[in-house]
């Protein structure tokens, strides 16, 4: 099949072009995620950025998490299940909406959406909007939005195959084919990504990352019925198989399947652009462990479906004013082990956006969205943003907005009892039923929180964000951009003990409690030394506090001990460190060398994270400066590319050159990784 394709297209070759990463080029970058209309990034009044294909290819990243980790202010955090999520502006991964081609991914097992599900092989660009964006996207766009835009077919036949091999027997192979003529376009992309995994801690009966095998198939088809009417269908199918091992000779598998289908009809006229879309996505997971004799030890499944029809119209009133209006419905179901019921939810929504350019210097955007919910309070999400161009190469912008996240189904309907330790976790909406059942079974010793307290529905978590940005091109060589950001989040959901069981263990349920504040600033500078060499350096300062925790320190309610045999002493307000897993300082340095004459490029990237805490080592329930911290560290990656001829590019490099390891605390650093990659363009 492979050779067939090779012979089908003669190999005249579409070259991979090393663009000079100049400031001018970046100015032309467009983004759709900020407004649901195509806009130039630099003139958009939002804290938004784009990572384009050239940048991704230069680093030879194969995983989305690699790309995200090198973007200033974004880090990926592994949860205990090994899923890697995005932390944005100091807010947890469950609060960032992740889209592929403008449509949301589902399947957040414990809140985290695993970025490793997404291959970067056919990504055109990654769009990042920082700051609450529920005014356009509704639920989950609490901290911001990451939109992964995949390649669109170019004129004629195009195609490429690539394969990379790296340490841990990790392979990543891609086949990408596309065709476009006057009124038809289509593309097929296939990715296979597999690895033997690795183990950082021996003798615990577990692997840090188990052997896995991922496959992605994406097919996109488009047909222009007429000049005005277009239809498109995008489908993506993903499967993952993980070989599990667990202590006591248990072994099993985790199987995941994800399907996305998006059907779009667009109509264009002078004044109106209308898109009607039907999006269907499902996420299915099944996991089991067997003992040595093949008897089933444990099994669980997870089956999440989202169906979303939406219609959106862009009305261009005149050159200064544009109006966007949309409405739709989200239908969601989840069938899962340990659930009291199989929840179904219909939530209709409506949104608008008014985009106004009174003159060359000013652009204002006002928007809002209404989401209707039955199980919890319906949400109104406003936003306002504006940009003022002081002069051609200097601008300031401000954006403010509201974001929210509805309680997830687990927080509402969970009914789980741990068989080895004996505690129970109950979803908020089923507390009465399940607790009464436990009482009937004689399992409850004490009720701590009266059942009546669960009558009012759990509130969505919400945040209000402000971003103020300044950017300036100082001269042809130097540019800088800087942002101050602040997010105040309230009603964050946590769990607490609601009853004691007679076995001495607790019954937990969820409640709205935490108020969190994150604020800080970032600055990014680009310097183009000459035609060959350019630098970019970025720094982020971040403060992330739980306000109630800070109050507890202020009130003198928190204690610590210096050594195991010394008495406890009271902590001061200044001893509070902040939220777990947040580094106060982060920095990224990138050095690019492009030699167009010799078709060679090389880039070196350094990433710094200052110290952060991942657990409360002194058992006072707060992260304070007497806890153990993960040391601040730098990771360094290098990648080189050489264009051999018009068809073939070879690349190689080393990630984590200095072999930085913290086996106990950093599970996604597995030591030094070497890789080799070849890409062959077909035409």
């Amino acid at each position, binding site marked *: 099949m492979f050779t067939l394709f090779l012979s089908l297209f003669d190999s005249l070759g579409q070259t991979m072009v090393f663009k000079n990463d100049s400031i001018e080029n970046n100015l032309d970058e467009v983004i759709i995620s900020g407004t649901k209309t195509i806009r130039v990034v630099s003139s958009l009044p939002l804290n938004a950025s784009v990572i384009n294909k050239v940048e991704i290819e230069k680093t030879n990243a194969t995983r989305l998490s690699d790309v995200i980790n090198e973007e200033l202010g974004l880090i990926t955090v592994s949860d205990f299940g090994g899923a890697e999520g995005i932390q944005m502006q100091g807010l947890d991964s469950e609060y960032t909406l992740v889209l592929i081609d403008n449509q949301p991914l589902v399947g957040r097992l414990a809140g985290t959406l695993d970025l490793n599900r997404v291959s970067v092989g056919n990504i055109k660009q990654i769009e990042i909007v920082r700051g609450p964006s529920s005014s356009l996207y509704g639920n989950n766009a609490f901290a911001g939005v990451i939109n992964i835009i995949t390649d669109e077919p170019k004129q004629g036949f195009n195609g490429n195959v690539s394969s990379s091999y790296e340490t841990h027997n990790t392979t990543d192979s891609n086949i990408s084919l596309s065709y476009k003529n006057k009124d038809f376009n289509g593309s097929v992309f296939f990715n296979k990504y597999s690895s033997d995994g690795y183990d950082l801690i021996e003798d615990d009966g577990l692997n840090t990352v188990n052997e896995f095998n991922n496959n992605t198939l994406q097919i996109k088809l488009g047909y222009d019925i007429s000049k005005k009417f277009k239809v498109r269908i995008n489908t993506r199918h993903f499967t993952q198989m993980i070989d599990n091992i667990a202590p006591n000779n248990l072994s099993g598998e985790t199987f995941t399947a994800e399907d996305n289908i998006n059907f779009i009809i667009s109509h264009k006229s002078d004044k109106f652009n209308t898109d009607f879309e039907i999006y269907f996505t499902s996420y299915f997971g099944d996991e089991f462990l067997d003992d040595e004799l093949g008897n089933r030890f444990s099994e669980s499944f997870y089956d999440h479906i989202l169906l979303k029809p939406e219609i959106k119209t862009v009305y261009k009133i005149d050159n200064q004013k544009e109006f966007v209006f949309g409405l739709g419905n989200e239908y969601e179901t989840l069938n899962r082990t340990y659930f009291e019921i199989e929840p179904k939810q219909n939530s209709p929504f409506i949104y608008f956006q008014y985009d106004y350019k009174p003159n060359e210097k000013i652009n204002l955007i006002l928007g809002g969205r209404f989401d209707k919910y039955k199980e919890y309070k319906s949400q109104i999400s406003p936003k306002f943003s504006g940009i003022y161009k002081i002069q051609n190469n200097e601008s300031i912008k401000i954006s403010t907005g509201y974001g929210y996240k509805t309680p997830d189904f687990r927080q509402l309907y969970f009914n789980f009892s741990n068989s080895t*330790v*004996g505690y129970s976790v109950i979803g908020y909406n089923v507390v009465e039923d399940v607790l009464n059942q436990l009482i009937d079974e004689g399992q409850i010793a004490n009720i701590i929180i009266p059942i009546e307290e669960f009558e009012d529905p759990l509130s969505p978590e919400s945040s209000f964000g402000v971003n103020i940005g300044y950017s300036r091109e100082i001269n042809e060589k130097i540019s800088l951009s800087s942002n101050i950001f602040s997010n105040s989040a309230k009603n964050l959901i946590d769990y607490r*003990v609601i009853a004691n069981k007679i076995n*001495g263990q607790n019954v937990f349920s969820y409640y709205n409690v935490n108020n969190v504040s994150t604020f800080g600033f970032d600055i990014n500078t680009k310097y183009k030394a000459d035609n060959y060499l350019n630098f970019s350096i970025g720094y982020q300062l971040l403060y992330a506090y739980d306000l109630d925790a800070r109050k507890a320190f202020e009130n003198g309610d928190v204690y610590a001990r210096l050594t*195991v*045999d010394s008495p406890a002493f*009271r902590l001061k307000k200044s001893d509070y460190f902040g939220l777990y897993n947040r580094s106060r300082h982060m920095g990224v340095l990138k050095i690019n060398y492009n030699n167009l004459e010799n078709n060679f490029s090389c880039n070196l990237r350094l990433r710094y994270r200052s110290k952060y805490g991942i657990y*409360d080592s002194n058992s006072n329930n707060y992260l304070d400066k007497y806890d153990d911290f993960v040391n601040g560290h730098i990771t360094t990656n290098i990648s080189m590319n050489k264009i051999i001829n018009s068809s073939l590019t070879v690349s190689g490099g080393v990630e984590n050159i200095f072999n930085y390891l913290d086996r106990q605390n950093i599970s996604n650093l597995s030591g030094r990784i070497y890789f080799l990659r070849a890409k062959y363009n077909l035409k």
Partner: protein
Amino acid sequence: MKTIKFLTIAIILIFTFSCEDDNNIGVDTISTTVEDLHAPLEGGQGQSASGSFTKFNFEDGIQTNSETNWDIAFRGTSIIVNGGISMGTEDEPERNGNGAAYIFEGTMNEMEIVETSLLVSDSQNSYAIPTGSGNGWYTYSGPPNHLINPTPGKILVFRTHNNKFAKVEILSYYLGAPENPDVLSDQSRYYTFNYVYQPNEGATTFD
């Protein structure tokens, strides 16, 4: 002149303090550390707990097998007092004293006077020192370390079986009180704690 004035004040102060001390006529308080008191447990972890409690007497500062002359007793993470009634788990010793307890939030030094109104005895529904992480004396760290560590700032205040008082700060739940216990290699259910015992009848302070 200044020196004389200072001396006078100092003398008066010393006199005043020693007078206060004299109010607690009798024996000095006992301040000591108990190391690695073993409190084994059978069952537990979802199964019903059983096995005999390790009984302790503050006055003697030692483990005891006496059926009456004990103040508190340990089994796993559970601590019971010799007062009140049994929660009905297996092998709980008979309570025949006037023991009671409460948890004071603060440091050992700040715990100066016993608030007798806060004292409760064990009851059918819960022990005077509640069980479970965060409810009583310890915090369970959860994954990945799964440690049971004493929560700093929790001082356990006890009335003994014979109406005296003691305050306790638990330091470690692991054998040898290691600085950084490892759940896989360090043995648990070994209590190390500091306590101050007030041997004088009716005295509610720990001077």
